[in-house]
């Protein structure tokens, strides 16, 4: 991380913050491996690789995650399948729900977080076209 983001008086915690989020997935043509994308932004998540977002100190930037799975389900009106339509409008095949480890500058909100860095730690369910295959491939290729 960029240590210039640490300001005088900041407490530095050792460790990461677990949060829950959802992504879009897409099976590209020509048997290419599945791609994982943020739900709102075009950010692509690559296997076993942390992602870095625009600093969460800037407006509403950062990698978003919910504090609990209940917070996530409340946001999607109880069913992640409600997210499939938008994912298909953007050319994707479905959505996947899982958890991430967050670190760096992390803004804590009442029901979630915005973080500078993130890495997936689990994928719990997938919804949409080829959801079983997507979940298996994500659990196999993206997690350490």
């Amino acid at each position, binding site marked *: 991380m960029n240590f210039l983001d640490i300001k005088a008086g900041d407490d530095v915690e*050792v460790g990461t913050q677990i949060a829950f989020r959802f992504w879009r997935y897409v099976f590209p043509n020509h048997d290419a491996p599945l791609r994982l994308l943020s739900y*709102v932004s075009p950010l692509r998540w690559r296997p076993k690789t942390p992602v870095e977002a625009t600093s969460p100190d800037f407006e509403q930037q950062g990698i978003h995650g919910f504090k609990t799975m209940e917070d996530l389900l409340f946001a999607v009106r109880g069913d992640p399948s409600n997210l499939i339509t938008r994912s298909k409008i953007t050319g994707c095949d479905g959505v996947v729900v899982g958890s991430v480890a967050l670190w760096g500058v992390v*803004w804590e*909100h009442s*029901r*979630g977080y915005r973080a500078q860095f993130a890495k997936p730690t689990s994928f719990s369910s997938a919804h949409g076209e080829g959801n079983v295959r997507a979940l298996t491939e994500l659990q196999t290729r993206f997690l350490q």
Partner: protein
Amino acid sequence: MAEIGEPERRRILVPDETEPTPQVAPERREPTKVPAKEPA
């Protein structure tokens, strides 16, 4: 994902699995040769 509520506090988290700091080998220097003094 805009439904995470109001911001409450700013935190700094550093993973405890950070890569070890690369060890930089000290520069190898040849000892300076001091010319032997001629016996007085």
